[in-house]
């Protein structure tokens, strides 16, 4: 599964736009500050390109916790910032979530080797506890995940992973392009060609 081309394009567009806007302040920044600014830019671009999802809202909310980030976010996102930070019908939990977690446990264990004899109550209790522990861990890793459960959590995690993968890939491509520009500084290669090679056909 991969991120859509339109997401990649929107992400690149936003990222370049953000870099363009922030480039002027890079001069006065320390290395650490610049690194944080770029990480922030990449996250904002990713959330903005993806649109409204539980995790993008969670991410924007987390980034907004710092005062200095908030004005930057408003600048980059414009009216989208208000839309993404608007409370989303509270944090209602899906009532059937516990049933779904139990059902997904059953679906998963159906794939297991049937020869494995059940060890009675203890091992299944342990298995449940392990699942609970790891579910909590996942909730902390997925932005906005704290208010999600079961199916929604996995659904958001899936989307988040796809977007993170795209984020890393795009940043790598950007890096490669910039590094290659060192070699092609004197070449006759035109700019539009270089940019087109980015997002693919």
């Amino acid at each position, binding site marked *: 599964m991969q991120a859509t081309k339109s997401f990649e394009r929107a992400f690149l567009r936003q990222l370049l736009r953000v870099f363009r806007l922030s480039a002027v302040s890079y001069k006065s920044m320390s290395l650490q500050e*610049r690194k944080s600014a770029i990480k922030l830019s990449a996250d904002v671009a990713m959330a903005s390109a993806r649109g409204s999802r539980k995790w993008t809202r969670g991410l924007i909310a987390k980034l907004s916790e710092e005062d200095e980030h908030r004005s930057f976010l408003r600048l980059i996102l414009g009216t989208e910032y208000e839309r993404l930070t608007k409370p989303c019908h509270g944090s209602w939990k899906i009532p*059937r979530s*516990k049933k779904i977690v139990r059902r997904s446990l059953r*679906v998963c264990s159906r794939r297991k080797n049937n020869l494995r004899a059940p060890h009675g109550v203890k091992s299944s209790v342990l298995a449940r506890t392990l699942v609970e522990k790891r579910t909590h861990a996942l909730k902390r890793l997925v932005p906005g995940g704290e208010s999600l459960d079961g199916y929604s959590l996995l659904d958001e995690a899936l989307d988040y*992973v796809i977007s993170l993968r795209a984020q890393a890939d795009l*940043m790598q491509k950007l890096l490669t392009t910039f590094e290659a520009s060192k070699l092609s500084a004197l070449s006759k290669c035109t700019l539009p060609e270089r940019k087109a090679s980015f997002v693919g056909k």
Partner: protein
Amino acid sequence: MPVEMSSRRSSSRISDEEISELISKLQSLLPESRRRSMSRASAAKLLKETCSYIKSLHREVDDLSDRLSDLMSTMDSGSPQAEIIRSILRS
């Protein structure tokens, strides 16, 4: 975590198929599952590998931010490379 019992019942149930599909999609993304047999997957393992993968992606992006910020520092110089980067950003 406190158990919140909601009195609201949604009319649309999520089917076993939808759950299976979601789990498959997630598994297909995880790097480890491509090497190992799918049949050994358990909920606990799926969650663990998803968490690991997210963490490793975070580290990757962190590292790329590092390298990009090194590169951006050449923006203030008058080198041909800086000019090219500037023109890419302008386009």
